């Protein structure tokens, strides 16, 4: 690295609005890009969340005419696609962007410009997806947004059944965001392996960084199958190829295999990062070191490995051979073992601690309960014959929302309350946070607990209406009320963020009395992160500094 121009950019605060905007657009700083990822993700979280609320309102009563079927199908597709690719992935990669260099004591990611490229590719791809609402030839007055479901099963996506460009928007925008995510993954791996500060061996990396590496590897291996399948589908639709064209001998199942080879690891790409957050937040608020660091990391790697070999458990009903079904049932149930280890180790961390019940910890504890339930309903779904009944019903919907909201969104909120002071220098308001937590908890359970039973009572997923007299009315009404309460809770969160940005309590560099490197620098951290490259001797460098008489490195 050699300098060319010495240009100080300390006068940002005085810059006019346009100038400040320009600063953000041209930035290559990992912290700003991370915040842009998170902010963008939250924006789409609100949009896709409102689409979910609309769907719940439509399903509140049987035979409802609030949302026509065509519009409903677009909602369900856009909600699913956006929540995975425009909300989950960017928010979590945003956190990694922000945290990984700070936690390994580096000044930036390994490839800052590639990072900027990845972000903008994601951002423009995301815009392209929602542009479909106004861009295409509008049928039924609702644009031509994709309406084939987020896993877009062939041959519904072929030209013969999906005319116009709606499916093309889905392919192109998701392809672009995947390329962006791949760029981020390359960056994270390189940073973690090549930019660690002195003394930080692989065995001393914070759990978050370890899991970021695991997730990055999963992205490198799991996103290409989706991209490749999308290229094939694009060739089918534009060049007349026959990959998934059943009329020319193509296979509908091949798409399902390719999609789920991506799709199942994707779930873990979304959930492993929040394991990392939990492994950071729970120790700090229990005032104890993480229980069984090596086992935690090893279990995550095991989950990542096994998750690559379980994809066909989404396909138990497609008529696989008994041997195939038995194999995928087995591999799926094996995931429960490392997952169980993680939950037990978190309990081991809490055990004997002194738990401070601040908002991040509240969300983390709710996460523990909900993730356990989600894991157990997951085992039920892995029991292939049971899955023949449960798959494609609201039981599955409830199960994966327990993972996606009960675990991931709860932990994203926990992480937001935890790292907000680091990123902004101000604390989020504790009382609003409590209101947010309890509202969200109540709303979440009102929505998704009854939906398990709706599935058992024969309610398939992705239906825009249902007939009265089938025992579904009460369950759906409760679920819809819960959805509105969740929306309200998110509103409280947004208010909290806006309020705290302006009037929040000053945080100082280390408000939680925590132990990883990011808390040793100012809040918000300066552009260069650390004036002097730090040097560490244990997994908890700040513990060593705080307790010089009893440092960690004696024991690790």
């Amino acid at each position, binding site marked *: 690295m050699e300098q060319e121009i010495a240009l100080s950019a300390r006068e940002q605060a005085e810059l006019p609005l346009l100038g400040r905007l320009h600063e953000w657009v041209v930035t290559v700083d990992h912290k700003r890009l991370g915040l842009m990822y998170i902010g963008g993700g939250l924006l789409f979280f609100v949009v896709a969340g409102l689409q979910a609320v609309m769907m719940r*309102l439509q399903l509140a009563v049987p035979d409802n005419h609030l949302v026509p079927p065509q519009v409903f199908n677009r909602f369900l597709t856009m909600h699913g696609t956006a929540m995975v690719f425009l909300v989950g992935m960017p928010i979590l990669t945003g956190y990694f962007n922000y945290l990984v260099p700070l936690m390994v004591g580096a000044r930036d990611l390994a490839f800052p410009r590639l990072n900027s490229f990845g972000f903008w590719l994601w951002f423009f791809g995301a815009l392209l997806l929602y542009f479909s609402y106004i861009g295409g030839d509008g049928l039924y007055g609702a644009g031509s947004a994709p309406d084939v479901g987020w896993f877009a099963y062939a041959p519904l996506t072929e030209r013969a059944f999906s005319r116009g460009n709606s499916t093309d928007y889905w392919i192109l925008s998701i392809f672009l965001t995947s390329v962006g995510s791949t760029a981020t993954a390359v960056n994270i791996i390189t940073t973690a392996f090549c930019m660690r500060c002195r003394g930080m061996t692989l065995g001393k990396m914070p759990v978050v960084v370890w899991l970021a590496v695991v997730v990055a590897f999963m992205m490198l291996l799991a996103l290409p199958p989706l991209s490749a399948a999308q290229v094939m589908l694009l060739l089918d639709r534009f060049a007349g190829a026959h990959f998934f064209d059943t009329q020319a*001998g193509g296979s509908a199942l091949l798409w399902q295999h390719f999609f789920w080879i991506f799709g199942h690891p994707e779930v873990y790409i979304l959930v492993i990062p929040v394991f990392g957050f939990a492994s950071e937040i729970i120790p700090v608020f229990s005032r104890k070191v993480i229980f069984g660091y090596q086992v935690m990391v090893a279990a995550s790697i095991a989950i990542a490995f096994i998750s690559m070999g379980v994809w066909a458990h989404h396909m138990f009903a497609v008529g696989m051979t008994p041997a195939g079904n038995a194999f995928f049932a087995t591999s799926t149930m094996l995931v429960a073992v490392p997952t169980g280890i993680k939950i037990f180790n978190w309990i081991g961390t809490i055990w004997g601690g002194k738990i401070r019940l601040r908002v991040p910890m509240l969300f983390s504890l709710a996460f523990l309960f909900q993730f356990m339930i989600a894991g157990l309903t997951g085992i039920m779904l892995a029991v292939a014959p049971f899955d023949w009944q449960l798959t494609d019903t609201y039981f599955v919907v409830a199960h994966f929302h327990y993972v996606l909201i009960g675990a991931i969104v709860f932990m994203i909120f926990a992480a937001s309350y935890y790292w907000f002071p680091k990123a902004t220098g101000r604390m989020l308001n504790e009382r609003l946070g409590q209101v947010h937590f309890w509202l969200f908890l109540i709303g979440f359970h009102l929505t998704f607990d009854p939906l398990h039973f709706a599935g058992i009572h024969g309610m398939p997923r992705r239906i825009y209406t249902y007939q009265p007299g089938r025992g579904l009315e009460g369950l759906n009404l409760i679920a819809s009320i819960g959805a509105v309460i969740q929306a309200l809770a998110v509103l409280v969160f947004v208010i909290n963020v806006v309020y705290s940005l302006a009037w929040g309590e000053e945080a100082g560099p280390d408000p939680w009395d925590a132990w990883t490197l990011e808390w040793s620098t100012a809040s918000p951290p300066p552009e260069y992160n650390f004036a002097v490259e730090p040097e560490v001797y244990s997994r908890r460098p700040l513990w060593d500094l705080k*307790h010089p008489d009893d440092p960690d490195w004696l024991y690790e």
Partner: protein
Amino acid sequence: MELPESTPRRRARPLRCITRCLVVIGIVAAATCAAASDWGMGAANSRLAPPDMFNPVSTPAYDIETLAWFAIAVCAGIALVVGALLAYSIIRFRSRAGDEEREPPQVYGSNPIEFAWTVVPLLIVFVLILTTARTIYTVEAAIAPPNAIRIRVIGHQWWWEVRYPGLKIVTANEIHVPVSDPAHPTPTFLDLESADVAHSFWVPRLAGKTDVIPNRRNTMWIEPRRPGVYLGQCAEFCGTEHALMLLRVVVEPRAQWDQWVAAQQKTAAASSDRGRRIFESTACVNCHTIKGTVADGRFGPDLTHFMSRETIGSGAAMNTHDNLRIWIKDPAVIKPGALMPRMNLSDADIDAVAGYLESLH
């Protein structure tokens, strides 16, 4: 939309907000309910038991239910133990006054206990795997006895074509099968095919679901032990009207089923009234078949014995005169997005066609 987001002014007070939401939801629900009609299906469904997988009447569904309860019991046991442990440790180790000065002991881990909580789940999972594998084979590898009933079910966008190859019967959306006496089992084996996109055949009280995939033939079997009408529907997203691709299985005593078979094998009454002429001279014949007439289309349901079915539009509406008229006039009123086009017939013609269809017993 009247979403409640815009209301809170000062601070979000949970209780007031919740009540406001309830009011808004109530208004929306009431408004939409008033406009909605269920085409008589609500009353018809209420007479039947809901399609509940834990209320099985057929052999594979029984097998699945047994295993399901086992899985639920195991999971509930784990949930209780782990949940109690978690709750206990949260309460027991919460921070108390005076705790602020000292850090608790730092425990790094314990190999034996971590080992133990690896092995115990492994054992549980192993037992579950064994029972799962056995049930998979019991259900999936069953061999059809020679006296089994054979049915071909073909999924279409958004209805079911049903063919009895041995009996030369073609019908739609309502499958008739004989009840199976455990002493002399007469199971029904279904070959599942698709004419367009992927669907999934699911009647929860009879068996688990099996996907209906184009360019592929899947099989499944049922062995109903009790007569009755069992509700099902398409379970794989298949386009606009996926929600209204409903299905009924009518399980009858053997004698009654034999009568039904005999009636279905006849050709339609050869009436030559005005309705039939209109039917035969419009595009109807391109998609529908009525045996004994020029109509031999395959895109839509076979109408030869139209009046033997309880519902129209694949279970979207009861087969009543009023509903039938509305359907012929514009199917989209009942089933928006249905592939049957609006025929633009005059009211008199609609009456005549409805009358003709109602003569097809």
